[in-house]
């Protein structure tokens, strides 16, 4: 019973403990400037994880987010010149539409989401390769600064990305807590049969969850390409694992129904602190994958609601 009570609080306790440990080892870590730049760097990942939260919240998964972001970096780099700021609309619409497609495959054709999103990810990868001719692309620096410079500048010492992240978090929190969509998604995650028996058109809302996941992955890709001033079909590889880890470590279990976007904020910060601490230990980003894999397993094992799984397949 005590474990049951502690469980919801584990994520932020973990975050505090980790931060304190790293702070003791290296007092520089806790300097506001350092923390802020750290937070700014993680924003694309956070936005992606924010979207992914919706897919996991209903008990599904979206494995296409990384390919989606890859594709969007390519699209953004190519069409910035001709569309200007409108390219953002194109990117978000593409993400929303392809997410909707995953949702359609899952809810209407009963393709499990891990397969449908994997397949849609394959489509994204093809599109990215096709559009880019399989090359790395660069944005025109001046035009980038003119159109999207506001995204990556600083206000005082605060990176502007953080404002973007805060705005999106507020929007998602509003959707989750205050809208019919959020309420239905919670019901679907916690008990889909009861939601159906209440006469709700469950499928439509589930499709929207995947669409939101796609749209936010697209925003993450857009921000990423603006930061790097370019795009390539594999440039965002390495995002999928930490994004899933962020959602699950934050306390939204794979079985859905509990947790939410605030949890993902905490989860992303945990990922950021782990990453930073690894840097102090001299472990490079590419080598962190193994650790994150293990963290992922631990996080799932701790959060998953086994009473919802009749048989574990």
């Amino acid at each position, binding site marked *: 019973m005590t474990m049951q009570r502690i469980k919801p609080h584990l994520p932020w306790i973990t975050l505090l403990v980790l931060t304190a440990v790293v702070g003791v080892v290296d007092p520089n870590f806790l300097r506001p400037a350092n923390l802020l730049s750290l937070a700014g760097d993680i924003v694309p990942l956070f936005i992606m994880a924010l979207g992914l939260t919706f897919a996991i919240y209903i008990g599904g998964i979206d494995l296409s987010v990384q390919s989606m972001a890859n594709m969007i970096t390519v699209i953004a780099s190519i069409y910035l010149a001709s569309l200007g700021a409108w390219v953002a609309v194109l990117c978000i619409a593409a993400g929303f539409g392809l997410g909707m497609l995953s949702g359609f495959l899952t809810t209407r054709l009963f393709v499990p989401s891990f397969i449908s999103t994997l*397949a849609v990810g*394959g489509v994204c990868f093809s599109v990215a390769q096709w559009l880019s001719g399989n090359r790395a692309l660069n944005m025109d620096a001046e035009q980038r600064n003119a159109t999207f410079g506001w995204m990556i500048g600083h206000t005082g010492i605060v990176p502007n990305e953080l404002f973007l992240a805060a705005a999106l978090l507020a929007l998602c929190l509003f959707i989750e807590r205050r809208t019919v969509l959020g309420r239905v998604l919670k019901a679907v995650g916690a008990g889909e049969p009861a939601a159906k028996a209440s006469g709700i058109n469950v499928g439509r809302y589930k499709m929207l969850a995947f669409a939101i996941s796609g749209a936010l992955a697209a925003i993450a890709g857009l921000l990423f390409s603006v930061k790097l001033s370019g795009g390539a079909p594999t440039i965002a590889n390495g995002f999928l694992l930490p994004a899933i880890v962020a959602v699950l470590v934050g306390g939204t279990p794979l079985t859905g129904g509990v947790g939410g976007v605030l949890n993902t904020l905490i989860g992303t910060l945990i990922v950021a602190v782990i990453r930073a601490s690894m840097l102090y230990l001299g472990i490079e980003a590419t080598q962190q994958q193994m650790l994150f894999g293990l963290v992922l*397993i631990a996080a799932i094992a701790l959060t998953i609601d086994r009473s919802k799984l009749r048989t574990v*397949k």
Partner: protein
Amino acid sequence: MKLTRENVIRWAPALVLLGLVVLFAAINPAFLSQRNLARIALASTPAMMVALGVTFIIVMGSIDLSMEGVVSLCAVLFCLLFLRLGGSLGAGAWLAIPAILLCGAFFGWLTGMVHVRLQIPSFMASLAMGFVGTGAAVLVTGGDIVRIEDDVFRALLTWRILGFPLMVYIAAALVLLAWFIQNHTTLGRNFYAVGGGEELAHASGVNVRRVRLAGFALAGVFYAIAAIFQVARLGQAESVTGANLMFVAITSVVVGGVALWGGIGGVLNAVVGVLIVNVIGNGMVVIGLPNYLQDGLLGVLVIIAVVLSTDRRLVSFAK
């Protein structure tokens, strides 16, 4: 034979394969040249091994997404061990082969343990273990490429019989072995029992956990074989040796007609599936289409295959 849903599902993959071959051959007769067929066969072998492994798991109704990591790790370890043992197949380095098969089995078993013991759905358990495998491969190599230049070992690629490399024949023999395991051993049949009705199998006294663990270990062995073939084909290993194998293998197995829900299809379906996928990849190049369309096309194919094989009367919702 009646045109029932069952029959369509059973024969559709083979017909699709035939249709594709005819189509590509009609557009460009060079498609059927021996050199091109050998190219297809060679390109198929590592994916074929991975597909065989994951077939057993899908038949059980689970899924394994760890192959990229396992293949990379096994390939890297194989190369390092091979070099440590003398660098020549004749000079004791052959020991690396059984060692790496054991290594694959162990990693697969570990994935199985995470899945069965911690009761984590297999797609997530294996995805995470795949990341661990890739991460371990990076850790072991430090991001470098490891080369093997032993002529005896490379004979797998260079020694050709009737135009086909030696490894194609070995792969064919392994397909037969997998088929034998599936149809003639208790373990193979228990995969079907678990996939067809896990609770019923348990009630009949089948040790479902042990069957699951054995399935993942067996898959690991096939991934290790795939790693060896991959090294033989490329002459080197690095942390991305296994890249893209997950998508290709899962697509192949599902397109070949193995139902994701478990219990239906088997090794022969996987073989047909791998051939479909590789014929498409090769054929697109032969008829002059850019090969990067492949992933998108495979994505579409896999959806069609899953939709066709789903009995919608039995499924109330998918997550």
